[in-house]
């Protein structure tokens, strides 16, 4: 049974004159690492908000169609109920940390749902270890770097043991090194815990090496859906997403008439492909 199934999902924010998301049909299997991308305003954040109930509970509007997460129909479910199925990590690390110590912050969600103390402590320990922040447990969030803050946010979400994690542009405010590190952490968690991961990102150069599937949205609908090497073609460029530079390079070489094979999406793939070309 798939982790996420959307059938004809549409949403119009209250007071808006057109839909932010229209007729989205999509199925994501357990354990997949999916990157969701698209130009600003394409509906990717809107889709994510449906997954944990922020739409329609926090953001009012007209929600049509069907959506099931973890085999649970989201209809009528509150965000609190869905929080144990779907974890959500936001863009700004500052505004999703609530306590003055990392440890208490990671425990926050567990405390909210009434987890008994012993169990909560165990899970907090585990979540902090999984995200590599055990040594930061007594620090206050404002003492941490952006990358460390995002790890703490991920740990806080992880502690609730959701089967799906949604991350909305978590690297926006991070420097390039921290961005690479946090995406590596996310990928590791996806691999080791079989945690279904939906990562919304513009920085495709950072995430392409981990994603086995990229979904491109445009103007409220799904435009492209497939493995990165298939997706990063002319259509993607026309929609206006920022493809990795190596992919762009090969596009130019292909236009120049060279027999470029598949689309490389990472530096390693590009290196391989160039060597192949040069040896012929």
């Amino acid at each position, binding site marked *: 049974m798939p982790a996420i199934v959307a059938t004809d999902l549409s949403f119009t924010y209250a007071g808006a004159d057109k839909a932010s998301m229209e007729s989205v049909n999509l199925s994501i299997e357990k354990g997949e690492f999916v990157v969701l991308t698209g130009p600003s305003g394409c509906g990717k954040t809107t889709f994510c908000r449906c997954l*944990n*109930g*922020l739409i329609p*509970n*926090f953001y009012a509007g007209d929600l049509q169609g069907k959506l099931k997460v973890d085999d649970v129909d989201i209809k009528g479910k509150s*965000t*609190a*109920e869905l*929080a*144990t199925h779907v*974890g*959500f990590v*936001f863009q*700004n690390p*500052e*505004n*999703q940390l*609530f*306590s*003055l*110590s990392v*440890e*208490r912050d990671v*425990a*926050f*969600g*567990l*405390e*909210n*749902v*009434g*987890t*008994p*103390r012993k169990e*909560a*402590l165990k899970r*907090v320990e585990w979540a902090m270890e999984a995200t590599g922040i055990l040594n930061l447990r007594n620090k*206050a969030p*404002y003492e941490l770097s952006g990358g460390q803050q995002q790890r703490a946010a991920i740990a*806080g*979400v992880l502690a*609730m043991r959701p089967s799906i994690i949604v991350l909305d542009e978590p690297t926006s405010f991070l420097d390039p090194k921290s961005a690479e590190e946090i995406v590596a952490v996310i990928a590791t968690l996806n691999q080791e815990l079989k945690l279904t991961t939906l990562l919304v990102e513009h920085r495709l150069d950072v995430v392409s090496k981990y994603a086995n599937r990229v979904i491109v949205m445009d103007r409220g609908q799904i435009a492209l859906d497939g493995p990165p090497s298939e997706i990063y073609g002319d259509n993607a460029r026309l929609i206006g997403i920022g493809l990795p530079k190596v992919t762009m390079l090969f596009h130019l070489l292909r236009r120049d008439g060279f027999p470029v094979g598949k689309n490389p999406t990472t530096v390693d793939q590009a290196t391989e492909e160039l060597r192949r070309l040069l040896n012929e």
Partner: protein
Amino acid sequence: MSLRFVEGFKFKRMDSPIHRLDPRAKFILTLGFFASSLMFTNIYALMIVFVAQVPGVLMAKTVGRWLRSMRGGLFLGVFIFVMNVIFGTSIVSSLAFSMRFFAIMSAFSFFFMTTSADDLGLALEQAHVPYSIAFTFTTAVRLVPTMAIDAQTVVDAQRSRGLELDKGNLMKRIKNYIPILIPLIISAIRRSVELAEALESRAFGATDNRTSITTLKMKAADIAVIVGTISSLAVAVYVYFYLPLPTLVIPFEFPRLF
């Protein structure tokens, strides 16, 4: 006039016997100072109440910041003195009222400097204050330094567009704060919305039986502080009712204006 005044109420994590005290004990101590300040009108007594706080400040290693917050309160302190004198109070009594202000401000500043917002929240929770109220309170305290930074950024951004806050008559100066207040308020609102989203996503309010991984436990030192405060208060009450205190006389009077 800057945000230095606020700094006197900002918590800074340090390892000191005062920081390690249970927040409830510290609060009782603060209330003790507060009550004594309100009770006495005699200047010597009020000075004692003020000076009695100094050992605590020394133990908490917060002398520098405490002094700065006192300096921040100087304006108000002088204002209280002047206003009292203008309205006919004797110089000595006016001094006493100023002293009272400093004693109270110092007590609360000291409390907030040595108690983290989290601990405050825990104390409130364990006192059976509804969680949403306790959380609102701690979040507000936690956000003060963040909002102060935001405020500074807004001031910087608008000054960079030629806004001069120190020029013009009173009306102009007030109007000049509109470009500061509006972005601040909007930023605060945006921040609250983001926070609320994140709270919802962590199941805030899911159940009325919220658990907590940390619990506050009173230790010997805390009990000692509470007992000490109560007995000192008892002594203070005795002194107030039964002991005549020396008075200070300054043979000078401002010409009565009213």
